[in-house]
């Protein structure tokens, strides 16, 4: 009987011939790999104790199974980190709003941190209700796609050069594409509920979408043009080598933050769910855990918006004048939270705007500013200044 130490080796995942990420070290993959080595090693040892000399034990801790399960565990690790970051952001929002409004904020758990879990449990215990005359397929699929795409796009955000799910050459484009799925589905959700408020909310989502997606895309284009790549790693590396994009593209940063607030449907741009006149807008007929997950996915999208702002304009996980930045994931998350704080502050200060006003803002202010920003980038690029 082989001792357990023979099975639990904590080998370097990069020595595995099936390693997926080439020469780049991947932290969540490593964590998943180590977890599986511990877990699989224990199982292999147990099997070996029960049935000495079987072939399964060796197969379980072999390269192929380790790699496959490490990938699965890596996804779980990335999601868990995303989830905890989101809970923290909800907690921060509630605490900051509590301060701004001079009222009590969250109270369950240490510093009120567990309030979101309490809310989640409460919505989880609610009954699953589908309205009688709703189009069930559209009703369920729309909300599934909204939640799914929001979680997916949050998982696609790399926290550092070593903490990522996939390192695409077209990373920014894919994130933008996934980010834009949900507003379409809001239209479907609003239509399928067979409710007038929800329908108006869905129509507002469509009107809002066409007004902010275009300037947002132009800002994406100017960032990619300046960095010379859509790859997030290269964009961040370029900013670290030269200058954070917030300096040459301050206009683009402002345009992006406004458009991202609209994309995340936060006040002042939460007209699709304007609770004053439309009850709860497109979410009116969603109840129980469906509604809870919609609220959670709103925060996932808020996180994505802030993370994109940090990646594209604030140098991602790098710090100036610091060579190899200490704990790049923490640096990145702090920048995200800084941007999120601005969003919360805005929410505490401003009122909701009107449908025609967001069309005016989108087409008459944001789009010209975004094009001006693109023009600045082109001039700088042609002039060889950056």
């Amino acid at each position: 009987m082989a001792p357990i130490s023979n099975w639990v080796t904590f080998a370097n995942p990069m020595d595995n011939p099936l390693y997926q990420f080439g020469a780049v070290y991947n932290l969540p993959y490593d964590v998943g790999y180590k977890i599986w080595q511990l877990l699989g090693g224990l199982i292999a040892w147990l099997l070996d104790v029960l049935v000495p000399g079987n072939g399964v034990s060796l197969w379980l801790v072999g390269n192929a199974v380790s790699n496959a399960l490490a990938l699965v565990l890596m996804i779980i690790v990335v999601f868990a980190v995303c989830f905890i970051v989101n809970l923290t952001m909800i907690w921060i929002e509630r605490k900051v709003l509590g301060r701004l409004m001079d009222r009590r904020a969250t109270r369950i758990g240490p510093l009120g941190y567990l309030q979101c879990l309490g809310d989640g449990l409460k919505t989880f215990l609610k009954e699953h209700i589908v309205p009688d005359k709703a189009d069930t397929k559209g009703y369920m699929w729309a909300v599934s796609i909204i939640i799914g795409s929001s979680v997916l796009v949050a998982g696609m955000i790399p926290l550092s050069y070593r903490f990522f799910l996939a390192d695409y050459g077209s990373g920014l484009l894919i994130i933008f594409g996934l980010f834009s799925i949900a507003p379409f589905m809001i239209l479907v959700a609003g239509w399928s509920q067979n409710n007038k408020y929800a329908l108006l909310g869905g129509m507002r989502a469509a009107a809002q979408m066409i007004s902010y997606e275009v300037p947002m895309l132009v800002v994406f284009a100017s960032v990619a043009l300046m960095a010379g790549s859509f790859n997030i790693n290269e964009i961040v590396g370029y900013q670290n080598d030269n200058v954070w994009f917030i300096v040459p593209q301050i206009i683009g940063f402002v345009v992006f933050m406004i458009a991202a607030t609209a994309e995340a449907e936060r006040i002042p741009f939460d007209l699709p769910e304007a609770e004053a006149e439309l009850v709860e807008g497109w979410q009116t007929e969603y109840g129980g855990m469906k509604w809870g997950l919609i609220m959670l996915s709103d925060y996932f999208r808020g996180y994505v918006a802030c993370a994109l702002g940090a990646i594209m304009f604030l140098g991602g996980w790098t710090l100036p004048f610091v060579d190899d930045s200490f704990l790049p994931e923490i640096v990145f998350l702090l920048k995200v939270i800084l941007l999120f704080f601005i969003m919360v502050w805005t929410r505490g200060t401003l009122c909701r705007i009107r449908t025609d006003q967001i069309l005016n803002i989108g087409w008459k202010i944001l789009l010209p500013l975004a094009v001006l920003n693109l023009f600045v980038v082109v001039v700088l690029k042609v002039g060889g200044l950056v």
Partner: protein
Amino acid sequence: MSKMWVTMGPQHPFSHGLWTLKVQVDGEVIQDAEPVIGYLHRGWEKECENRTYPQIIPMADRLCYSASMTWSHLYCKVAEEAMEIEVPERAQYIRVIADEICRIQSHLMWLAAMGTDLGNLTIFLWALREREWFLDLNVKLCGQRLTTNFPRIGGVRNDMPYLFERDLMRVVDLFEKRLWDIIALTDDNAIFMSRMQGVGHVTRKEAANLGLTGPSMRGCGVNFDVRRDDPYMVYDELDWEVAVCDDGDSYGRYKVRIEEMFQSCEIIRQAVAKMPDGPTRVKAPRNVPEGTHVARLEDPRGESLMYLVSDGTDRPYRLKVRSPIFVNVSASKRLVQGGRMADVPAIMGTIDMCLGETDR
């Protein structure tokens, strides 16, 4: 999209109370509107016919939870006119102070509701925070926060308690400073201004035809206030100004209410300074001589009026209430037509709905 009717209410976040606004929308633009009231009808006027005159005072509190002081004051006023008794001067001053406390806290309640209507919870919580002081003053003066049951036929229930004037001055001084904090959230806020300016516009002439009173009327340039033009109690002895704004839109009505809060602080300050000594209550007769009597006063929401028919017994034969909101809400069709769906809370919020007095 073809036109469709959307029913907003009676269970709807924008309707502060149980009423319905049916709007016909073409896309987002409102083509037609129809207010539906009556969900809160309690038979108030009929119930009064079965009660003696003093028993009606606490009922008058229930006409509107945030203007209870002015409503019970109005009832006492009409009863005093019917009984032909004169209120002692100190009681008159105390009533003026209590009315102005009521006016400020009612306007703050309106401001808070306006904040949620426009999607800003900070305005809501800040306004309610300042309102607590005035409710605390109410507690000190009459022992109740909302349904005060304070005026009596022939005076007020009790004199001002020990150190009440000091607390009043402190609250008024601090409130005037704090109100500027809220104004910084509203007037300095471009989005708030863009939501309020130019929506729900109504001209002087239309206001007269629709019968608008109160801040809604003064918001479109009509310089009329019952407190000044048909003075009751000691309002004519105090130096203050009627808040008027010529805009005629939601923002004009907002400005009038904010200015009224400052003027109310001024009235309180002067009333405390001029407060004479003396009794606070005279004895009122049990029965009222036969006849009809009308009294009106400036409610926080407009001009409220009571019409009393007495038949010589100790109970009124008929007590008719003219509620300002009952009339103002009938203007809702004119106000919201041509606006957008999102303007409905911004417009109807400035009417300051109160269903207790509307449906009675």
